[in-house]
């Protein structure tokens, strides 16, 4: 009865101004919802896709499934109470949240953090990056149904979580970096055990390279997919590995060295291809670099020392009126916190800005146009979208 029209060249139909003209009551378009269930790599988020055939003509991002109102909740908590609260902003990599809150508070209150504590903070941040990348690097191949690397990576990640458990007392929510310092020195024998795990990562890196980056299927699907032009970087707000894949050096550790990153020797990898493959490649190099940075930190950090600067009584710690913006490099890119205080013992306003805020909304919506339905997951993962960061 129906004749199927295979010629999709005229879809979407454009109006005179060049905007897509989508008439859902015609048979040409279909609305398809992807999400909010998530397959494990990203959080809950849904995409409202308008498709023709298996090609996407329009995409709208819907978030809010994980909205807890952190910024509101923190306004009614004292600064020390904000500390366990704010870290739950991002589940996969909670440590940058801890660090940002602490350093915002320290900056506004004028507190100098002891040297040992700063090194320990760096270690925690890098270990967090390591465990995220161990999921993310093979996870990219997972979106093309190559799940083996994901199995390997998750095992090593779990060992890193064991180290976190030893160091911080928590597996996923570490609650380690608090305003004024950190919550513990390295346990006995920690360095050796961590080194054992790093050796596994060393072994993992070439294995996953052989498995994924030389893989003809992965190459075929990822290369040339979702290319981000250079001009978009500032225009859309693209950070971290995604920017570096476009040949633009964006790494807060290099541009605004915080903690003791200026004493560490590292050079983030950049490439020009700017497609899914390139972004994944940048992450692979990041993983390699992170292992190297952790080794340098372990070699350079002092064994003993103060872990916390004396602070006023945290039960009623008032911070002078002021505002500041502090940022750090998360595995997804520049991660910043804007804190406004009004002289009381609670923050006036906290605003957290992660790369996903732009990556998953304006960038993703734009990149998905003309992509295939089967590639949406790959594009999402390549941008490292983390919905809790968007809606907070």
């Amino acid at each position: 009865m129906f004749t199927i029209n295979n010629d999709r060249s005229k879809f979407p139909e454009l109006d005179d101004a060049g905007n897509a003209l989508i008439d859902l009551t015609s048979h040409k378009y279909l609305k398809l919802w992807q999400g909010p269930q998530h397959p494990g790599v990203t959080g809950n988020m849904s995409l409202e896709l308008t498709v023709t055939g298996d090609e996407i003509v329009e995409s709208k991002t819907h978030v809010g499934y994980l909205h807890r109102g952190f910024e509101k909740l923190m306004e009614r908590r004292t600064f020390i109470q904000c500390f366990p609260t704010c870290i739950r902003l991002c589940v996969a990599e909670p440590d940058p949240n801890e660090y940002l809150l602490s350093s915002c508070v320290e900056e506004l209150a004028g507190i100098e953090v002891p040297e040992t504590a700063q090194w320990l903070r760096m270690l925690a941040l890098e270990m967090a990056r390591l465990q995220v990348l161990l999921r993310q690097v093979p996870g990219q191949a997972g979106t093309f149904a190559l799940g083996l690397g994901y199995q390997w990576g998750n095992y090593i990640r779990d060992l890193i979580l064991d180290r976190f458990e030893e160091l911080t007392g928590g597996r996923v929510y570490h609650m380690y970096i608090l305003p004024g310092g950190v919550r513990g020195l390295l346990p006995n024998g920690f360095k050796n055990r961590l080194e054992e795990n790093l050796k596994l990562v060393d072994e993992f890196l070439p294995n996953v390279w052989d498995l994924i980056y030389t893989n003809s299927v992965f190459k075929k699907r990822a290369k040339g997919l979702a290319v981000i032009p250079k001009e978009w970087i500032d225009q859309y707000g693209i950070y971290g590995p995604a920017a570096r894949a476009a040949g633009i050096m964006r790494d807060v550790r290099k541009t605004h060295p915080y903690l003791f990153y200026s004493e560490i020797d590292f050079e983030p990898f950049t490439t020009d291809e700017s497609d899914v493959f390139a972004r994944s490649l940048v992450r692979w190099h990041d993983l390699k670099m992170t292992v190297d940075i952790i080794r340098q930190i372990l070699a350079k950090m002092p064994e003993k020392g103060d872990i916390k600067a004396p602070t006023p009584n945290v039960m009623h710690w008032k911070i002078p009126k002021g505002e500041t913006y502090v940022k750090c490099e998360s595995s997804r890119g520049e991660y910043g916190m804007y804190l406004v205080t009004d002289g009381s013992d609670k923050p006036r306003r906290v605003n957290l800005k992660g790369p996903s805020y732009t990556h998953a909304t304006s960038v993703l919506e734009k990149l998905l146009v003309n992509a295939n339905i089967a590639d949406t997951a790959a594009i999402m993962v390549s941008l490292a979208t983390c919905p809790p960061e968007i809606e907070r």
Partner: protein
Amino acid sequence: MKKDFDKDALSDMYKDKFLAPENEIRFVNAPDGSIIEVNPLDDYFCQERPKELKPRKGVVEKFLNWARAESLWVLGFGTGCGSIEIPPLSTPRFDMYRFGVQMRATPRQSNVFIISGYLSVKTLKRAIRSYEQMPSPKYIIALGSCTINGGMYWDSYNTINRLDHYLPVDVYIAGCMPRPEALLAGFGKLKELIKEGKAEKANEYIQNLDWYKANQKKIIKDWNMPDYNW
């Protein structure tokens, strides 16, 4: 166990909230030029009340329970923080497959729903739909403080405080968040319950459907779907 329930309050609650545009009746042009009427509420949903799953007699029920217990298929819908501990479970270190537990991508194939932490109102709506689409017998495992009494987000305007007002929960696991080992122990407990024939919360949900629906509709402001999603 029948829950106390005010019938008058219900009729107020059941007043139609607005329907989402995509659920309104619409007309679609077929390629051959004919016009087709689409009524999503009739076409996509079933309007019938759900039925309880009555246990069989004696050994048959025992055998069924054994089979159910040893094959728990979990819906891959991570609702909150706790979902971060699902990947370790499904990878070699903890390997939940050896306990007969595995992840499924759609509700139609699953019979265990892990509510892994807080539920925002927006997610609750999806969780209810997913739960109702799951075939009986079905079970809910609730993870962490958030599902018990609000947890971290006890004063948040957007997350529910106690899950048992909206969905029936078989097993609770304490922690924020519970570790994979605790989760495996939770599956162990659920298996025990199923084998003893005590995991009957899904039937309780159907018995008290009106009470649950009233609670759900109280907080889900735009209830733009039919009451039953199966």
